[in-house]
């Protein structure tokens, strides 16, 4: 197992290098430079500013020099400074937006799991029942609906007409003056709509996935055996079938690790939430190379670790895989 782990970890290094190289080149291929955007179309801007900025940012160097400069700082865990006019360290900009992004994503994944696992199971057990059909219809409707449109409808309904939920932001004005309980309530009420909106798209996929897994599992011989033993249907489904049907969930959770720091530009924009999605989008629009690369590298590292984590926990949870590994090793 240790050997396997170290092998996997070592393999990550060239993979990561490859990812950074490709990302770096692709981003610089995109037309436009940060300096254009900061100096152009401004009747008061001097024409020499452009050149000065290029030198300050190191954009006058050949691309491979820029890449090696960037990489040599990266190996010291220095992500560099943003090209935006504030020139703040990339790391600070990202850290500032991580907590809310992670919180939203965790809550949304939890909501997806809590709702879609039971939905999937019931749909599978009562296949082609009215319940199955109507949930299928509903989750697909949720999936197909543009989230920004649904968000605006809900904001108008719950926020403006009924006035029960805040429309946007993370906290109310005057949050500092609320009691502790009031603060918690205030934060929760601000999270309800964003979490619901970000979860609704995922519900469809996951509940369908759960349903087909379950259908797959109940056709297996060991379920037949369990039934033949005379176990009650409840025990068959919730003990023997469910455990096996849940296994792939681990993979999905592992794969969603990088998603924890990714955000959706659309719902962050609509709910005015300062998250990673908007940060990244703005960075791309501004051609803020260090910030783009910083976020991409963090995402890449998390993806690689998420995959590893998924594989490991899969092996731990599924004896078939564990034994196979040992058999090979």
């Amino acid at each position, binding site marked *: 197992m240790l050997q396997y782990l170290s092998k996997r970890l070592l393999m990550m290094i060239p993979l990561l290098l490859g990812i950074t190289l490709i990302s770096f080149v692709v981003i610089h291929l995109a037309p*436009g430079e940060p300096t254009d955007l900061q100096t*152009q179309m401004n009747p008061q801007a001097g024409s020499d500013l452009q050149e000065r900025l290029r030198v300050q940012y190191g954009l006058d160097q050949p691309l491979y020099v820029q890449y090696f400069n960037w990489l040599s700082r990266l190996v010291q865990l220095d992500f560099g400074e943003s090209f935006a006019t504030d020139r703040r360290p990339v790391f600070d900009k990202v850290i500032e937006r991580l907590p809310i992004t992670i919180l939203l994503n965790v809550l949304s994944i939890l909501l997806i799991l809590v709702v879609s696992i039971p939905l999937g199971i019931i749909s599978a057990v009562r296949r082609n029942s009215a319940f199955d059909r109507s949930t299928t219809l509903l989750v697909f409707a949720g999936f197909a609906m543009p989230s920004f449109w649904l968000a605006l409808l809900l904001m108008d309904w719950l926020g403006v007409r009924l006035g029960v939920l805040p429309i946007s932001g993370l906290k109310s*004005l005057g949050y500092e003056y609320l009691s502790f309980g009031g603060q918690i309530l205030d934060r929760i009420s601000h999270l309800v709509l964003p979490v619901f909106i970000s979860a609704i798209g995922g519900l469809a996929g996951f509940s369908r996935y759960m349903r087909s897994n379950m259908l797959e599992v109940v056709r297996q011989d060991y379920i037949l055996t369990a039934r033949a033993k005379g176990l009650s249907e409840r025990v068959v489904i919730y003990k023997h079938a469910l455990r096996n049907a849940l296994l792939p969930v681990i993979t999905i959770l592992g794969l969603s690790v990088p998603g924890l720091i990714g955000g959706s530009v659309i719902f962050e924009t609509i709910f005015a939430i300062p998250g990673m999605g908007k940060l990244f989008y703005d960075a791309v629009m501004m051609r803020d190379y260090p910030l783009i690369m910083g976020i991409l590298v963090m995402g890449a590292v998390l993806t690689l670790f998420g995959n590893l984590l998924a594989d490991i926990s899969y092996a731990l949870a599924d004896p078939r895989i564990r034994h196979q590994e040992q058999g090979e090793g």
Partner: protein
Amino acid sequence: MSQLLIGLLLLLLFGCNGTQETEHPGVEKVLTAEFGDTFIEASIGDASTLLPVLASDSTSSGITGLVYNGLLRYDKNLVIEGELAESWDVSADNLVITFHLRKGVKWHDGAPFTAADVLFTYRLYTDPSTPTAYAEAFKQVANAEVLDPYTFRVSYAKPYAPALMSWATSIHPKHLLEGEDVTQSPLARNPVGTGPYRFKEWLGGEKIVLEANADYFEGQPYIKRVVLRIIPDTSTQFLELQTGGLDFMGLSPLQFDRQTETSAFRRLYSKYRYLNFGYTYLGYNLNRPLFQDKRVRQALAFAINKQEIVDGVLLGYGVAATGPYKPDSWVYNPNVPRYDYNPEKARQLLQQAGWQDSDGDGILEKDGRPLAFTIVTNQGNDLRAKTGEIIQRRFQEIGVDVKLRIIEWATFLKEFINPSNFDATLLGWTGGPEPDQYNIWHSSKTGPRQLNFIGFKNAEVDQLLEDGRRIFDQQQRKPYYDRFQEILAEEQPYTFLYIAEALPAVSKRFRGVEPAPAGIRYNFHNEWFVPKKEQKYAR
């Protein structure tokens, strides 16, 4: 409050000739101004830096405008008045300006403000290592000196009319910035100025909070706090406005016209409308053979129905443009050639220029080549995209085959505007009360990355622009710009399309809002207030 740019931006937002849309609420008894309450507005983007010398976005400038002061500013009628300068003298030859500064002004950290800060600010802007976009006006200065702690003198080699208002630039604190790398200064996120509001906090991507400066030299502002929320989506902003989460918002024509005519909205908000500084135009690349014939440009101008664009795109909240200045400004020349919609005339002009539909496909040809070109514009501006579509249809009707391409901003600049690689472009300029347009029209500004990217070269215009910026007196100056506008109208290097109106809505809690040529925000810091009974935010 400070900085020419802010002046321009605020003017852009809150332009001229305010007319209140709502009916007058009868006789309201005169209220005495009271302190307290919070003013909440929103911006679609976060500020980039709160150091005015580096900031080039409107969100940052809006905030620094309240935190910093300039020596001068525009008053409600767009007449220059003193801010940090109590008075100023201009020498008879217009070459030397002497500023007499206010005494007893303090920086927010308690340090005294003196002429040394002004000199420092001048040096900061002109320092080659400062990446500022606003050094140009200061580069005209031949000499700047401190005569005593409250007297500052600048001299110019040649008279330069925009010079005076360049001293509306935010004055920076010498004691906090001297010897520092300005790009790494903590003041970028924690500004210290002399202005009516002090910086309180900035939560990235969420909000910026300012608090009234009790020691402000013009008296403590009545509104105790200003909160700028970052709400990137304008639909969300509008929903927030409807629930009272915002006290101010610039409305779109659609929101202004159709979505705010409810009694609930009218009870809570006053709406205002006035012309912006700035215009939208269709610019022709004069390096292309097609557009070198003046008759073609004039024909295209006749083919565009400007009023239709104003009515269709702006829902009537704007006016058709005839030149670069707005009709209610002193410099505007009403007697220029006009191009009222006349497709017949357009066809005639094209025929004179040799364009005819010889193969009957509906598109004109000359020497076997069809009359076809592409209009490029930037993504993200819905009004421009719609304008482009309307123009496209009108051009089609006179036999001109036009394609419309909408391109993301960075790509647009890099691939099309910088290398002058376009046929025609649909864009806009924003300006201010200062009529100097040297950077946009002078033939020396046609180089790469410069603003005369359509390649307009006209010796008479060059001379007019050079002379016009050397004259301080409005009356003496006007003939130069009158002639300048005539030439532009005759030559049609741009077809000037429209000037849009600013359409702000302000919560009715706020009193003291007096629309003037300078817009509505000019007296925010010393006249706006909320009566005690109506104050919403106690703390």
